[in-house]
């Protein structure tokens, strides 16, 4: 595993944010005063290489959400660049943009909200192909992806309310896989799921990275979940990435204060039973 991580590091990044600064202007405090600005991201660089699973952790308000929005192209950075396959996604033509849209797909936190309740699953799955005007045998692709996420074909004729949260998250992952993306961005994909289901979805994401050679960006507030799924973790705090490392290094030798706080916040069953979890 470690060897693979090192090999991965030799290849150039597939999706990369370089020196991104994002500020929002707030409303004026006084009539003639200047608008105060809020710096949400401060010269942040972040990347993922082909076939690599990277994690991003941080408390709420650390800038995770904004980073995700910029990485997925939902927001244009005020300063800095986002590169896909070496090309600036905001500088190219429509073709480059379409290629980016198709290659970077997102799985969101709340599966019940991420599927249209009035659309049959089959149609929801076809939507990315239709929207991105991807040619080919759509039906065959749907069946292939359903197999990859472990869902039966009967799902296609049903509506979202007929499924449980865990199944819906599988469907959302299936939709993200439809255009055969190279990068999957998963934003808190298990935090809205039942405990007994979380492992299923985490294992599925791990398998997809291994079997399809996908790159995965896994964003979560829980360091344990990120450590389980990824091989390189970035820790965010107050709009900056304060530490990057392998999960083992972060846990055993946390350098930044934010990392130490996150590691220190982890509760384990063993420590709890020993009576020193809250010490």
């Amino acid at each position, binding site marked *: 595993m470690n060897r693979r991580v090192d090999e991965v590091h030799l290849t150039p990044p597939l999706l990369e944010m370089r020196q991104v600064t994002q500020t929002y202007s707030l409303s004026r405090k006084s009539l003639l005063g200047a608008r105060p600005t809020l710096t949400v991201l401060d010269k942040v660089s972040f990347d993922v290489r082909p076939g690599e699973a990277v994690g991003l952790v941080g408390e709420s308000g650390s800038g995770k959400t904004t980073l995700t929005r910029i990485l997925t192209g939902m927001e244009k950075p005020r300063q800095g660049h986002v590169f896909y396959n070496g090309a600036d996604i905001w500088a190219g033509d429509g073709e480059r943009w379409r290629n980016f849209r198709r290659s970077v797909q997102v799985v969101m936190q709340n599966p019940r909200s991420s599927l249209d309740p009035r659309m049959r699953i089959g149609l929801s799955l076809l939507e990315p192909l239709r929207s991105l005007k991807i040619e080919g045998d759509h039906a065959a692709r749907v069946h292939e992806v359903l197999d990859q996420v472990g869902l039966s074909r009967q799902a296609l004729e049903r509506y979202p309310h007929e499924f449980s949260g865990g199944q819906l998250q599988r469907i959302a992952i299936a939709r993200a896989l439809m255009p055969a993306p190279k990068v999957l961005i998963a934003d808190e994909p298990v935090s809205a799921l039942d405990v007994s289901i979380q492992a299923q979805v985490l294992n599925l994401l791990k398998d997809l990275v291994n079997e399809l050679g996908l790159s995965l960006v896994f964003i979560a507030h829980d360091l*344990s979940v990120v450590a389980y799924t990824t091989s390189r973790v970035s820790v965010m705090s107050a709009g900056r990435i304060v530490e990057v490392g392998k999960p083992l290094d972060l846990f055993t030798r946390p350098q930044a204060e934010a990392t130490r706080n996150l590691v220190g916040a982890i509760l384990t069953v063993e420590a709890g*039973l020993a009576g020193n979890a*809250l010490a």
Partner: protein
Amino acid sequence: MTKPQQDRAQDRTNVLEVANLVVHNTTLTAVRGIDFTLPAGGRMGLVGESGSGKTLTALSLMGLLPMGWQANGSVRHDGVDLIAQSDKALSSRRGRTLSMVFQDPLSSLDPVRRIGQQVSSVIRRHTDAGKKEAERQTLELFRLMSLPRPEQLMRAYPHEISGGQRQRVMIAMALACYPQLIIADEPTTALDVTVQKQVLRLLNTAVQERGSALIMITHDLPIIAAMCDTVAVMYAGKIVEMGPVAEVFRSPRHHYTKGLLESQPTMDNIALDGSSRLASIPGMVPPLHSLPKGCAFHPRCSAATERCRTEIPQLEPGARRTACWHPIAAPAEAAIQAGVSAS
């Protein structure tokens, strides 16, 4: 941090005795007959996923069931049966002998009243303390919860303080009248992970200091391990396993408990080089309207047999209770059995 001593609990009476509690509405039964007792000062964890009935169990103890839901059975507390009590009698108990801490502190506090006012009005409602005395006690509670600048906090509004502080205010309010029992429903789920531990620590000491019993409802097993003496695992409206936390967590006897312990990614069960693989429980939590026959867990259980499909297993009596036809053998028993089969 020490847990409350068992012996102190045993020489006093039980603070709660729940027998055959059923919670239902016109079409669904969410809690299907549960029994447990909680000694004074005892701490019980209630573990379960959504749909397990753990929250409705708690709300029925508080007399706060949502519209259309009804509780049957018996809940003995402080010499009375809570289920037979009128709304008025229950409401005079809430905050006095029983209190509850909810998941979302922002929606549990009144946004337009000052925090100090809200906490001291609870004290004035249930005790004969005057305004000055209630405020003094409120300040003391804020100090107990290590809230910064308690005097200023008295005059603050809920939106002016952080989520962690709001939850500490909620705990202070719950503890205000030295209740015999506090029910905490996922009290740290809405908080940032880094704040969670601090809030738990404060809850732990404050509950101990005030001598209250605690029921901690969560799906987060490490929290139960840190806070509780006993644990009850609920699945589909029934308690499937119950006993001292250390025993249940170290050697779970129900396959669901084992599955939960193995499937939640915690530092206990994952290797940090990415090589580990979590054992996941297959399938999904059954919806209430179509529970499987027999043991509700059997469709997801690797040890299920014909008997599991037809007969509902009951909790066997004793301190360590399991509702399973094929409980997992304890390590010692397993070793003996292995020896027998080997010879």
